């Protein structure tokens, strides 16, 4: 490894990275009003376990955990995981999604807490 490297390469790279970040920030404007869907967790089950949401639109899920124990809403297909402690609620934003079926599950109760979001 030589010790006389050109440090300006790293400096200009950092400046470019900052420019990209600033542009991204400006693009992250506040989102418009989005549809809200509610899910309940009761006795380690999701209610509803299956529901439809609109395609190509961001959706807000409010998940109420009515059990005393924690649960984790998780879906690799949705790229989301959210731990919701007992007797509390959590918010998960999903989409915009293409039409299709997107399974989800409760990580703490894999055998019972299963569900599916149908995007139409």
């Amino acid at each position, binding site marked *: *490894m*030589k*010790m*006389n*490297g*050109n*440090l300006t*390469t*790293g400096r200009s*790279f*950092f*400046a470019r*990275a*900052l420019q*990209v*970040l*600033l542009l*991204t*920030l400006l*693009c*992250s*404007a*506040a*989102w418009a009003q989005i549809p809200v869907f509610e899910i309940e967790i009761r006795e380690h089950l999701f209610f509803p376990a299956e529901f439809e949401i609109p395609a190509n639109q*961001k959706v807000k899920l409010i998940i109420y955990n009515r059990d005393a124990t*924690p649960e*984790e809403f998780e879906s*690799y297909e949705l*790229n*989301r*995981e*959210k*731990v*919701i*402690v007992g007797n509390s609620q*959590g*918010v*998960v*934003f*999903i*989409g915009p999604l293409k039409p299709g079926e997107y399974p989800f599950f409760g*990580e*703490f109760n*894999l055998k019972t807490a299963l569900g599916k979001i149908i995007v139409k």
Partner: protein
Amino acid sequence: MRSARYKLAGVALLCSAGMDQALADNPEHHNGVGSVNDPYVQAMEREIELRTIFQTDAKSSEDNILRQRISYGFSISDRVFLEAYAIGTRLPDQSFELEGYEIETKIQLTEQGEYNTDWGVILEYERQISESIAELATVLVASRQWGNWVGTLNLGIEYEFGSNIRDEIDRFASGQWRYRYREAFEPGVEFYADEFTLGIGPVLTGVIRGNGNNKWHWEAGLIAPLNDTTPDQTLRFLLEWEF
């Protein structure tokens, strides 16, 4: 709008503080390759992490250097995660030694998917044991998904101080571009940049599920140099047990 103003103010601070500072003058045994952090925190999360960095180089004094970090971390809320690291190093022709420790706090700023980009910030304090050298760092973390692709960017500034080092402010950046192929196997590309390091290379990551909420997260990468002060090859491995 209010949160957008905070974000812009943070970036302006990052730019003004980092750009015109003097550079450190000694790249000996320096390697800026680590890992790329995401901005997410889960409530009730606990983890043990082992991170290995192994470098080879044509220059013998920079060849065959091994760095190990082991940590324990836990979340104190659904937005704040604390982690403590022990850091060890084996330099050429020397035995493995405990080099220092680090305390880190990750704060998730926005809900995943709430905005086009997800945001977080990491605050770090690192201290060497044998020498009076310490670092305070702030890292801005951004992540965005495009279909099955996920891009993550870490931009940081650090203040190095102590009686064995000239006090200075440095900046660093790292990024990852990853394809969500399977939960257990996601290929990608990473880059690392700091005052001496400029490197890029492939990375593989994945999650393997155990019983209940036990999960094993793994990462392996090979970083090649883009300048003369980055080691010829840097291999990195990460294994994280979430429970």
